[in-house]
């Protein structure tokens, strides 16, 4: 019997499972390669770039963005989206700021920020799961509504006089490493652990990867998505206290435009906008990439007014490299 062409039980794909291929398969591969290339370019062209304090300042500057991106990453992995984080950050900061100016301390304002965020996240989650409204609409509406609430609560005025003990999350450091950076890295590690080692973390991938199959497998799809939205609220709450610490005050326009940067970070990092594919490392890489670009441009002496344009172009370049990856892997379609 001629069975020359019949595939062997062991997949051919594994036969050429070189380490390059194994790297390329990872969702954050293009972003990491891109990041590496940028690091080299910036290091060569500016001697101020590659030193510890500069790299630390990059991570510190993207901490708020990165922390929120880690959570929004989970939402996007489930196949949903959250573009309400800009206003949410503002509202959390208002909540935390109000508590900080009346009671001081760190724990209470932090709790207040987290509570406000979790509440808003829960509303988002309920509207998406129980209300069955598309998440992009829910969070778009929330983006407006929350900005309104901010102006309403503050009456349009700033919250100033945040006590130093509350600001410590934004300004403090230990062993010369800034708190924002530490928190970002800890939350990243937590999310990596959650993704790999918790049932919810795995279900996030399953729900976003094949919702039909997830339903047949009996996964609690609504609960998985709901929790992802709540997680965004919690992380935004944490980020709001860092933000407040760094800024020293809360303005009514806090977080404006952040929502799109967050989504950009997640997507540049390599998490698929349609869900099911990605990683926390992708979200972190995306956020760092944005930070590195902005920082490198300053060091290269690119005028500040051009930074946004270069950032946009690099975002497009980064997402386009995914095509290259698909080619290299020989994926059709």
């Amino acid at each position, binding site marked *: 019997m001629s069975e020359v062409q019949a595939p062997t039980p062991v997949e051919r794909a594994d036969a050429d499972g070189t380490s390059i291929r194994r790297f390329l398969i990872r969702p954050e591969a293009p972003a990491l390669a891109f990041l590496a290339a940028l690091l080299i370019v910036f290091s060569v062209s500016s001697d101020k770039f590659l030193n510890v304090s500069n790299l630390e300042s990059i991570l510190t500057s993207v901490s708020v963005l990165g922390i929120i991106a880690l959570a929004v990453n989970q939402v996007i992995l489930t196949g949903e989206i959250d573009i309400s984080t800009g206003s949410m950050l503002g509202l959390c900061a208002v909540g935390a700021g109000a508590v900080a100016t009346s009671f001081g301390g760190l724990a209470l304002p932090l709790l207040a920020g987290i509570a406000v965020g979790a509440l808003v996240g829960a509303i988002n989650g309920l509207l998406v799961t129980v209300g069955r409204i598309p998440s992009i609409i829910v969070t778009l*509406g929330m*983006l407006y509504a929350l900005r309104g609430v901010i102006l*309403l609560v503050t009456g349009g005025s700033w919250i100033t006089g945040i006590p130093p003990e509350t600001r410590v999350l934004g300004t403090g450091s230990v062993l010369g490493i800034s708190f924002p950076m530490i928190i970002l890295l800890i939350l990243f590690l937590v999310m990596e652990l959650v993704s790999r080692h918790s049932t919810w973390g795995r279900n996030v991938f399953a729900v976003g990867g094949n919702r039909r199959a997830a339903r047949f497998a009996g996964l609690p799809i609504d609960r998985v998505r709901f929790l992802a939205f709540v997680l965004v609220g919690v992380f935004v709450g944490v980020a709001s206290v860092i933000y407040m610490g760094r800024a020293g005050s809360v303005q009514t326009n806090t977080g404006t435009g952040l929502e799109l940067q967050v989504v950009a970070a997640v997507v540049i990092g390599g998490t698929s906008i*349609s869900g099911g594919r990605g990683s926390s490392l992708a979200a972190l890489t995306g956020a760092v990439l944005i930070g590195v670009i902005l920082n490198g441009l300053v060091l290269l002496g690119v005028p500040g*007014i*051009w930074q946004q344009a270069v950032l*946009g172009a690099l975002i*497009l370049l980064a997402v386009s490299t995914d095509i290259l990856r698909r080619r290299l892997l020989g994926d059709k379609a």
Partner: protein
Amino acid sequence: MSAATAVFRRLKFSREVVLLGVLIVLMIAMGLLSPLFFTVGNLLNTSRYFVEVGLMALGMTLIIITGGIDLSVGSNLGLVSVAIGFSFAGGLPLPLAILFGLVVGVAAGFFNSVFITFLDLHPLVVTLGTFALFQGMAYGLSNAEAISNFPEWFAYFGQAYVGPIPGQLFIFVVAVAVVWIILSRTRFGRYVYAIGNNEEAARFSGVPVRKVKIALYSGIGLLVAIASVIYTSRVSTARGDTGLGLELDVISAVVLGGASIYGGSGTIGGTVLGVIIIATLRNGLLLAGVPSTWQLFVLGVLLLVAVFLNEFFRRREE
């Protein structure tokens, strides 16, 4: 509940009817809140502000029907404004500068479409990138400065009145008519719905999916450019941050108008009502002395309620 739905069924429930109801209720409420609201002058004046969002919403309706989205319209508006202002400041005669602005707008839209069609990237991702790119270019090219020494006749586009009617309203009405005809009467419009309902089947049926998308994203570029001319003329200033955040107003208007964000359904009539409702709300609340702080809140809640009702009835129908 069942009685209510039965009535709805007999009325052959349509989203436009509901929206019209919302608009009427809204106008009555506004009339009660402020006696100034129902003056002809005010009503027409309101229209001055919604034309720019309205023009972009027309293009966005078609894009959303195909299942796409364009987040870069606000940035593109700023870019066109800067292109006009600074090419004029650089010595180009104003008519040519305006023409140049229109070309820039279309080119920006075309740029989006190249990434979306040839690289097969998700429109949300692409336009998120060009959102930053166009805005950044507008900042960079303008050196973050403003141009406002336009000749007097430039004001015609955004400040002129024909009798009591603002000039740009005519442009809007013409644009609505054109886009409405395109969507409901032409082959192109049929293709738009076909792509939104089932892109694969459309492709198998010989619908030139790529060409349609290129035309759509370039087309919204043109509408954005026209809106930018009006906007720039209305405020007599060309600046890089013009149009900042308008994309969300535009998308809200379209979704409020009943277009499904998943693609496949949506009408020009609905979108126009959506635009007018948002404008009425903003204007009415302003007149009633409601602080502008409330407006965003009301807008957000209105959007959620409208979409919720939309989805609710859609499911009832099925």
